[in-house]
């Protein structure tokens, strides 16, 4: 057995083991400690004895036994845990229950609407993906102490307020599923367009989000929005290789070298889009996935079916009438109806604080020949952009402007 073997088991099994231990022990901290201890035992004994046939089951059983030993030693830990353990006597057979459901329970607990979104994301990455606090802090470029505090507070709230450890019923699902999907998608988008730092992409975050997306699709195969989210992430991830030019500057979708798109991810994403749209229950993730699928169908940027993209954005804007959706729709309007129509959509959107709003507006103004206004808009976008790669991109666009003077503002 090598360190890589253990690492693989850790990555693959830790979330499952923690989820089961949370159910058995009724306490997240205890569960994490016990699983951590079991992996330490594995690191000490597996090199000599070899990896057991069912590594996850071995870790779970070992963790449970360790937790029982510890509770026997520390009688002060409270009666609730002891009772929970008595119900699941440590010498009962190997079977560790419906583990698939345990992970689903855990994700719904982590993403309970009573927790703030940054805490939901941090808890999910920590408990289900096994990321450490420093890893999460690095990924989101926030101080380690901030992440640690979010996780500690969230765990305390889960315990004190008794946030339940269960999969919500069908009646609650419409309210409970969106924060779960949002936490996964936020992880993905942060990986695909990092808020800060010099690199545009954080591939590790995209990979974790895709792993979670696949897990959710596996656990909830009948939820069209779950499939829609996975399809959206796959179709977006497919473009990752073409998204950054040499030197780390972003390349806009119409200008990307499509031979560098990952065809197998495109095929998988397109198949999922077709499968979930057939169910006839479209939602925002499915529609966004369908938009990504239209793009992935075009042999070149110029051959994009922008009318279909616009129709889908019209549908999305009815489902999710947010300013950001309107901003994205404006790009489709630009390609179907021209820059003047796009400018009319953009003006009046309450997105003064968003660099992408000003960057889009700058592009539209440049197409209208209003270079001076375009330059002012790029300046505003640059002042708001916090990612180094995006700043380089915006400076390049600004430098490419002519010296037109027919601006009006």
């Amino acid at each position, binding site marked *: 057995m090598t360190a890589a073997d253990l690492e693989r088991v850790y990555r693959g099994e830790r979330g499952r083991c923690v989820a089961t231990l949370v159910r058995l022990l009724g306490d997240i901290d205890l569960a994490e400690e016990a699983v951590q201890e079991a992996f330490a035992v594995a690191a000490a004994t597996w090199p000599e004895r070899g990896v057991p046939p069912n590594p996850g089951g071995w870790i779970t059983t070992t963790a449970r036994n360790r937790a029982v030993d510890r509770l026997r030693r520390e009688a002060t830990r409270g009666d609730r845990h002891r009772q929970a353990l008595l119900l699941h006597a440590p010498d009962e057979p190997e079977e560790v229950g419906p583990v698939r459901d345990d992970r689903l329970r855990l994700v719904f607990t982590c993403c309970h609407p009573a927790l703030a979104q940054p805490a939901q994301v941090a808890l999910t990455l920590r408990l289900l993906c096994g990321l450490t606090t420093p890893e999460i802090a690095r990924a989101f470029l926030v101080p380690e102490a901030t992440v640690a505090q979010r996780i500690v507070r969230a765990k305390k709230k889960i315990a004190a*307020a008794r946030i339940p450890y269960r999969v919500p019923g069908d009646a609650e699902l419409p309210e409970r599923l969106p924060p779960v999907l949002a936490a996964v998608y936020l992880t993905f988008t942060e990986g695909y367009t990092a808020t800060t730092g010099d690199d545009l992409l954080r591939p590790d975050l995209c990979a974790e989000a895709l792993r979670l997306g696949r897990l959710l699709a596996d656990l909830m195969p009948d939820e069209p929005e779950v499939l829609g989210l996975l399809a959206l992430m796959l179709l977006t991830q497919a473009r990752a290789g073409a998204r950054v030019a040499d030197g780390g500057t972003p390349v806009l979708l119409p200008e990307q070298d499509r031979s560098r798109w990952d065809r197998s991810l495109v095929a998988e994403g397109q198949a999922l889009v077709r499968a979930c749209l057939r169910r006839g229950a479209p939602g925002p993730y499915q529609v966004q996935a369908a938009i990504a699928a239209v793009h992935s169908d075009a042999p070149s940027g110029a051959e994009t079916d922008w009318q279909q993209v616009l129709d889908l954005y019209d549908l999305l804007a009815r489902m999710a009438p947010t300013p950001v959706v309107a901003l994205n729709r404006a790009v489709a309007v630009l390609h179907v109806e021209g820059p003047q129509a796009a400018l009319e959509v953009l003006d009046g959107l309450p997105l003064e604080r968003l660099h992408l709003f000003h960057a889009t507006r700058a592009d539209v103004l440049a197409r209208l020949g209003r270079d001076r206004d375009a330059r002012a808009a790029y300046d505003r976008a640059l002042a708001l952009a916090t990612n180094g790669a995006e700043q380089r991109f915006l400076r390049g666009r600004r430098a490419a402007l002519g010296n037109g003077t027919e601006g009006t503002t």
Partner: protein
Amino acid sequence: MTQYLLSVLHDETVTPPAEVTERMYAQVGTFNEEVKAAGSWVFAGGLHPSSTATVVRAVDGEVVTTDGPYAEAKEVIGGFWIIEAADLDAALAWARKGTLACGAPVEVRPFQD
């Protein structure tokens, strides 16, 4: 079972018309009956305005009494329920009905064991 405090955050700067207040009282009455019928009721009450509050505090061992409230705020606790529920989801389900009944935000906090 855990006990939860459901406090009603009342905006004292607004005086709703009498018929709105009357409807609110009737709705809260119905809600109270529902909580009792479900066996979740512990205690509840409505409070006089915060201008009737008095603050008593010990400063260096000496007790000082001042005209309240403790902190000037737009929203103050106007009333509360104490309910018993299996978990936060059950408590939030009552809070949802409670806020619809009283027309003000409801804050849910667990009691210590």
